């Protein structure tokens, strides 16, 4: 990187960096609460915060289109589906004593080890790498549309087929249970 020498160090952050770190901390905190809270619906709502935080990070990285997709799909649909699922499986109000399974310790150990390894490797590798976010936006709708429908058309179409298959699959799964237990609707 020819700009490697020109960029400021870690001790003199730019405004974008400060915002990024702040939002990142909030996101991470929301994620941690989401995976540790004993209230199931709260977990899903904290997940909304975490996903929204990631959307903001996308905006900060000038990937605007992806940020809105993130909001539309994740916050608007995925989390709603998750909440649906939680409510249909009778998530209680208040704390569930058995929200966590028996291998919390092992999970914690593995997660901490993975985090340590990844952070170490990433920091070691990208200590002095600089992203230039001040130039032209990298993820405007025009740019994204052009690359998506010019270079990535075939994967895009394949994905549409996958979505269709998932749609059909979900319908089939739901229909089967209603046929097996007709009294339950």
């Amino acid at each position, binding site marked *: 990187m020819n700009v490697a020498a020109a960029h400021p160090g870690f001790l003199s952050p730019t405004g974008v960096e400060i915002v990024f770190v702040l939002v990142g901390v909030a996101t991470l905190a929301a994620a941690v609460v989401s995976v540790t809270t004993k209230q199931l619906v709260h977990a899903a709502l904290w997940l909304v915060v975490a996903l929204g935080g990631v959307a903001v990070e996308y905006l900060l990285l000038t990937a605007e289109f992806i940020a809105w997709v993130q909001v539309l799909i994740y916050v*608007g649909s995925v989390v709603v*589906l998750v909440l649906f699922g939680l409510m*249909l499986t009778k998530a209680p*109000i208040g704390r569930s004593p058995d929200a966590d399974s028996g291998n919390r310790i092992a999970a914690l150990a593995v997660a901490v080890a993975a985090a340590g390894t990844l952070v170490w490797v990433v920091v070691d590798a990208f200590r002095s790498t600089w992203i230039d976010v001040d130039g032209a936006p990298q993820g405007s709708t025009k740019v994204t549309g052009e690359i998506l429908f010019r270079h990535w058309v075939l994967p895009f179409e394949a994905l549409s087929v996958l979505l269709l298959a998932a749609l059909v699959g979900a319908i089939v799964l739901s229909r089967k249970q209603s046929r097996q237990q007709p009294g339950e609707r």
Partner: protein
Amino acid sequence: MSDALEVILRLLAVLVAFLVLPLVVGQTEHKVMAHMQGRLGPMYAGGFHGWAQLVADGVKFAQKEDVVPADADRKIFQLAPAVALLPYLLVLIAIPIGPGGLVGQDIDAGLFFVLAVMGVGVLGSLMAGWASANKFSLLGGLRSAAQLMSYELPMLLAAASVAMAAGTLSLPGIVDAYAWWWTPWQLIGAVVFFTAGLAELQRPPFDMPVADSEIIFGAYTEYTGMRFALFLLAEYAGIVVLCGLTTVLFLGGWHGPWSDSLGWLWTLLKTAALAFVVIWLRVTYPRLREDQLQRFAWTVLIPLALTQIALTGVVKVVIS
């Protein structure tokens, strides 16, 4: 410094609009419904034509005790109205009123932004329904969530048709590209968009999730006072946003005679006309049953929206 000032001024203007327009719509609804149904009640408060009815309502809401049910999840219960209301405020930022930057913030993917943020509003209903610890509320919340998910799709498709026609996702860009013949061209899309929007707002005749004769008041059963007023405000804000969006997307926004100077007036007029239609529909049509609601979305609106996309694509290819 002037940049920051300008941004603050714009946001302030949006906030003012957000606070005023829904109230206007609410007042209009009172009056229009009263006239259409021949009701005398709302005609008394304040003397002339019952002009102070809305003020009286506000006072009543403010006076009421803010009750949270004992078994409810307090925080979420209290947070839900805000979650339901905020998205509409955010959306309002992106809707252009007049030419030459008369908009809260010109967002590159404005249409996309609007639809994405509006989708978040559903969380408010779900949170309210679940946190109330009331089976009617839960059912209502689930129903409204299901309804919002179903009608999101035709709405997106209809909006996509317009985006295709204009070749941009920016809302001012779309209005700029508008020509008078777009309205007949995109007529099906307009109807689909408007209908789906109505359903997203759970306005009659799509109000099964909050139908008082069915499940009390759906997700909002346990709410009283200001929090309930916020939900109502969200609904009226939703009407404003929907009508504004329909105006911008399908009716040409500020286009009209003397649009250079009076563009904002055209937008507001068109929006108001649509809002009137919304109210009119409320008093006209009977309520759809829950299964009819879902079937209507999947078997009528989505095929229609797809037809519109195909039509748009064909015409676009032909004229290019």
